[in-house]
């Protein structure tokens, strides 16, 4: 290494010639990158500024006269998290299954057709899902709910009495699950397709069956993608407004029973339903619940990041 000359210092190194195209491109990329921070900051500032009056106001001014701001917002937070987790719990295994079928089991033609259909599902507006939830799903599952409360009512989840309309938080969660299915499936499919053939062959050459190969090579490799897909889906389920607002008849309760007629509403649905009739400090109250939702999604995303980064060395990206 003695032959290496000392590196030129910054002062004497010749300045690289700056081409116009490079400069324009780098500046516009910088502006685009900064813009997202500005927008995020603008939203956060609006939320905080508009929430403050509600946080310091007398709870007696709020609609329904809750004991405090937190007493008002807690059932909504619970409903939001509960419905979104139920939706994720139902949709994620299904999404992984569909994605695996498309990427590793289906014949190419069928896989392509299925891929298009999944993408199409993602394009259906949420209000249509809401209508489907009220008009088709709720009446269809109502007899099942009755059966569940009668036979499995001892499980707290299925505690009686069953709702007569079928419009419960479980129905809302099913609708949410159907809504978040396409985006999760699409992301899982993409990462599964990117599993290096080398790793798949390594597993097969060791005498792995197809399923063992998937467990050994495809799923571990796709794990960060699965987590990101789940978080995107969860994010959408947390913030979804119309489908929940249409399906649920809300009540300010905190209850894990999913088949009863009294169900907690979600933050987003509550804002949509209450905003038109709100005045004065109640508007600030609703915006404050929006701030809470903002914070919840932030926390959820941070947890996902942490989960993905925890085993970075083993990710297969190096």
């Amino acid at each position: 290494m003695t032959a290496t000359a000392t590196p030129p210092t910054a002062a004497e190194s010749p300045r690289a010639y700056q081409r116009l195209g490079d400069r324009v491109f780098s500046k516009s990329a910088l502006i685009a990158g900064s813009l997202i921070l500005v927008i995020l900051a603008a939203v956060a500032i609006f939320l905080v500024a508009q929430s403050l009056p509600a946080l310091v106001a007398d709870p007696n001014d709020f609609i329904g006269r809750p004991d405090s701001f937190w007493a008002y917002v807690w059932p909504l937070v619970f409903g939001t998290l509960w419905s979104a987790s139920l939706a994720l719990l139902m949709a994620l295994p299904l999404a992984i299954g569909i994605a695996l079928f498309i990427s590793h089991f289906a014949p190419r033609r069928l896989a392509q057709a299925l891929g298009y259909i999944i993408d199409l599902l993602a394009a259906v507006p949420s209000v249509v899902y809401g209508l489907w939830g009220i008009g088709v799903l709720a009446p269809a599952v109502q007899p099942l709910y009755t059966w569940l409360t009668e036979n499995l009512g001892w499980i707290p989840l299925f505690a009686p009495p069953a709702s007569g309309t079928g419009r419960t938080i479980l129905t809302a969660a099913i609708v949410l699950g159907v809504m978040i299915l396409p985006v999760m499936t699409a992301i899982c499919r993409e990462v599964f397709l990117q599993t290096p053939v080398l790793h798949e062959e390594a597993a097969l050459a060791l005498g792995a069956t197809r399923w063992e190969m998937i467990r050994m090579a495809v799923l571990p490799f796709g794990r960060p993608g699965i987590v990101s897909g789940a978080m995107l889906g969860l994010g959408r389920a947390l913030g979804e407004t119309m489908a929940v607002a249409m399906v649920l008849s809300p009540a300010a309760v905190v209850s894990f029973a999913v088949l009863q007629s009294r169900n907690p509403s979600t933050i987003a649905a509550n804002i949509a339903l209450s905003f038109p009739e709100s005045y004065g400090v109640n508007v600030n109250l609703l915006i404050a619940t929006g701030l809470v939702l903002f914070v919840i999604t932030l926390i959820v995303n941070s947890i996902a990041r942490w989960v993905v980064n925890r085993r970075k060395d083993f990710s297969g990206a190096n």
Partner: protein
Amino acid sequence: MSKRIEVRDLNVYYGKFKAVEDVSLTIEPRSVTAFIGPSGCGKSTFIRTLNRMHEVIPGAYVEGEVLVDGDNLYGAGIDPVLVRRQVGMVFQRPNPFPTMSIADNVLAGVKLNNRRISKSDADDLVEKSLQGANLWNEVKDRLDRPGSSLSGGQQQRLCIARAIAVEPEVILMDEPCSALDPISTLAIEDLIEELKRDYTIVIVTHNMQQASRVSDKTAFFTIAGTGMPGTLIEYDDTSVIFSNPSVKATEDYVSGKFG
């Protein structure tokens, strides 16, 4: 452990395309057999038929027989999964599982099929396999690190350790050194020399010196032209192939005159 392989009148097809035509040869146990020949001559395809890995590609099938100690790998009711547990394979590019630690990589094949193994047995097997692949001393302090943290040559030896951990009858190596530097290549070649005591080894290589250094017998494959199937031209002791081959094409190829 090692077994004799007899190939009889083997044709390999990818759909309608015939990739390899009419190969018959016998591979002795506890020996190293090298397959040489120009790119696209079907030697990689052929080596993959010895553990049915060619079936990973849709539409691939064979005609003829591959007998391992008299049992036809392509007999009715033979499960390719079980074939691959007997006939291990090492690939051109090192492919340890990046999501697993070094120790888990070694145990990957052993844990298949829900076989249970006690912690102490597992530790012994990891050490034995890594010793067998001449890798133990380099990695014994970091068995819980990911396999991808090793150098290319170490990764390839890890793959060999993974293959021998399941105690196969035969080990197939498809250009195992083509992505490695000369020092790592030498380490692998020394290892092949040692593995020969216990296993039947088949190796595909583009490196003539490597074939002459490591193998007992050499098979030369070639194709007549693009779109034609690959054929086995000559199969003999390595010393004969490299000094006094009976076919002109072989002599041209090993001496570098091949067009």
